[in-house]
């Protein structure tokens, strides 16, 4: 299947969320859950997967209904669709693991107001057929999960000396507690963004016509 010339290929559509438009590192969207729950790698992964599920469900529904939703009430419609899927996820996580449910707390329900999901519904799903929209949403969801995992693992390693609850260093390791406290979230995300900025400017300086620079 060969898509039209100016249309992005399916692979590009999929990779968009993972690399070029990564929700966490490039668009800096949906940061409230990104910073609040990423005190450990497990929490980060669970949050990423829950968000991906909501993203996929709402994308499919929005894309299917795109011809029937009047423009004036589209945001309200999207929000109600998203809220429905979030309620599903909320009950699902409570049923699967009560410990996880308590660790994530109100932040599961706060997925409703995650800008990524509404942003995708508005910018992509409402303009594309279900197949294409789903591919893009999958990419975005994976990109978001990777971003959260990058934050969560760094914070857990530095702040508790563990990864997935397994101690990495010897018993004399002094945990850098501030990293699992709120300021650490800001610092780690700031440092990641700094790293990406630095890589970008370095790529530009070395004269390599890196495509990423255009999207900076």
């Amino acid at each position, binding site marked *: 299947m060969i898509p039209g010339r100016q249309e992005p290929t399916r692979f590009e559509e999929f990779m968009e969320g993972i690399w070029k438009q990564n929700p966490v590192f490039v668009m800096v969207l949906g940061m409230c859950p990104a910073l609040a729950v990423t005190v450990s790698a497990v929490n980060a992964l669970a949050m990423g997967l829950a968000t991906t599920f909501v993203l996929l469900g709402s994308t499919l529904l929005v894309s299917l209904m795109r011809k029937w939703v009047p423009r004036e009430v589209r*945001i*309200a419609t999207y929000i109600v669709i998203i809220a429905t899927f979030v309620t599903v996820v909320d009950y699902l996580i409570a049923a699967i693991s009560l410990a996880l449910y308590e660790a994530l707390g109100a932040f599961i329900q706060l997925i409703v107001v995650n*800008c990524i999901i*509404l942003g995708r519904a508005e910018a992509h799903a409402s303009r594309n057929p279900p197949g294409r929209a789903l591919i893009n949403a999958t990419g975005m969801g994976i990109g978001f999960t990777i971003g959260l995992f990058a934050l969560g693992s760094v914070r857990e390693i530095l702040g508790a000396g563990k990864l997935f609850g397994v101690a990495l260093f010897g018993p004399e390791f002094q945990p850098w507690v501030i990293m699992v406290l*709120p300021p650490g979230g800001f610092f780690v995300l700031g*440092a990641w963004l700094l790293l990406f900025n630095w890589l970008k400017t370095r790529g530009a300086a070395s004269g390599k016509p890196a495509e990423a620079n255009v999207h900076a």
Partner: protein
Amino acid sequence: MPESLPQIFLAAALANNFVLAMFLGLCPFLGVSGRLGTALPMGGATTFVMLVASLCAYGLNLLVTTFGLEFLRLISYIVVIASAVQLVEMVLKKYSPALFRALGIYLPLITTNCAVLGVALFQTTREYDFLQALVFSLGAGAGFTLALLLMAGLRERLNLAGVPGVVQGTALSLMLAGLLSLAFMGFAGLGAVE
């Protein structure tokens, strides 16, 4: 553990500051905090929406629990918040068009401000009564406004400072927020912490 009203207010505004300790409402926090002039009205508008949302959420929660429809709670909250934002938007457009333009896209985005939904959700899980919910939402609004003002003041100063190009933008804002958050940790223990 009965919490007194001043305790709830202080905890929501300082010790558990919504932006700096709980990471709620970061999008407007980073987006609108460029200038002091827009930070204050934005804080005011958000506080008002929080107040309305909190009161409505209290009523809705009673209704939803009475009929055993807990699974509708989230959906009804978000619809109420969206309507409250619409109201603020209409009032601002009528009485202060200049401000309306200055806030721009961030005004309708209050709907997706996690802090507003956060207020409604937290007061439900903590089972606050009517008065407690009222004070809680006011405290949260005051905390949000305070964080926004502090950040705007810092960023106005930073515009004049020579910062390396790599650090500029969101990375710098996040580092600043981290430092502010560090400062706010000094309030830990003030008021009631769960």
